[in-house]
């Protein structure tokens, strides 16, 4: 199944956080979520950790790509190396 992509670059806080949490609540835990953000979402990480999710962030300046997965379903090396679908 194709991973879901969420672009929150044009939203003001806390809407990016709200949308990410809403998306995770609607998704089966086997799926992946890619988030495209304009800044590094530090407050999100702590919530993800408490909710049993893992994440990886890459990027700089105005574009950060965050891959989120449920801790019991970690991504394969192949998934990690493929990067965010355009």
């Amino acid at each position: 199944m194709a991973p879901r992509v969420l672009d929150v670059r044009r939203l003001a806080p806390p809407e990016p956080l709200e949308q990410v949490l809403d998306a995770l609540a609607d998704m089966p835990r086997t799926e992946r979520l890619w988030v495209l953000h304009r800044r590094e979402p530090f407050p999100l990480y702590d919530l993800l950790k408490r909710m049993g999710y893992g994440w990886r962030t890459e990027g700089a300046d105005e574009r950060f790509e965050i891959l989120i997965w449920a801790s019991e379903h970690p991504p394969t090396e192949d998934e990690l190396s493929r990067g965010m679908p355009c």
Partner: protein
Amino acid sequence: MLNTAGLSLDQAPPIQVPFAFFRVAPLFAALAGAVLLWDGDVVLISRWSAPALAVTHLLALGFLTQVMCGALFQMLSVLAGAPVPRVVWVGRLTQLALVLGCLTLSWGLYSNGRAWLMLGGLLLGLGLAAFVVAVGVALTRARGVPQTLRAMRFALAGLVMTLVFGLVVLAGVLGARIPGLAGWVDLHLSWALLGWVGMLIIGVGYQVVPMFHVTPAYPRWLTRLAAPLVLAALLASTTLVGLGNVGLAVWALLPAILALGAFAVVTLVLQRRRERPRVDTTLLYWWSSMGLILLSSALWLLDGRGEVLGVLLLAGIGVGLPTGMLFKIMPFLSWFHLQHRQVTARRFDVRLPHMQVFMPDGVAQAQFGTFAAMLVLLTAAGFSAGQPWGAYLARAGGAGLIAAASLLAWMQWRCYRAYLDISRQLG
């Protein structure tokens, strides 16, 4: 790969710490409004009159510094990853000293009571020293956007200098021999307005304007130059006063005025290029404050009436910008803390309301309308000093300030009540 260790929400101080500062602040604005209402015939005749000095300190310390202290306790931990040590204890001590110190100093200025003035100076000295030490420790550990942190460090230095010169002036008023006292009063004022308030507006603006209004980042030339220029101008002015050249010391402030003017113009340009077309009340307050920075800079260059300048800077920017920020900060913090509690308690059955529900923008816009009317009335009163209608305008402005402060307090109470209600549901 980036460091994704993340910031723990546990680093944030309990919501009661910043909220205590925010919720007490409107009482001081209302008190300043009451003085304007009571002494409308004299307050704007001269900035040296006893009621004018009381109003100035009620707004500058009781409202503006109160909100800024509360916001700094919060911002340092969340934005810069640098929690203030013993934040509950330091927060309570700072606030107690600030509230009592502001009340006693203002009463001392109003009634020319020496004992009250001494007590006010002592309390403010102790309270602000505790604040400066605790925030200073946090700032040495802070990481994050270097330009914002630099402006915040300069702002803290500005607060220290304001306090030191304030105590020097107080000693002079109480009878100590201070040569060239007027020059020290000007320094106290310059460090307060440009060093403490101006620098904090710059530092906070670099973070919150791009974040909350989804604008491009501030240009590098401005973030590199603005805060150091303000600091350099203040140091030059201080040196000149020390050397006894008060006339030149005033003009040494010109680079600081220009830097703040450039910040205001760039902010307005960035906000025109924002991604979201919606105009909320916080944006209205930013627009009015940036416009007032430009207007008061022009008035300063044209050597306009100090009393009108005081109205624009204190009632206009000093009350306006923190109020606009509170309309964003308080709902955001309420939502943020509730979200944290929900995840910790795993109570996903409780639906959290969206941020706007905590402070509806319709009521906030009515509050802005009241504020704008108050500002027009007080500015007109400043220009009409000595005329028979000047006192009526000042009194009407005072009533407007009480109304604007009451509306703000009411919205704050609604926001906090909503937070407590949902908090109880989360258990």
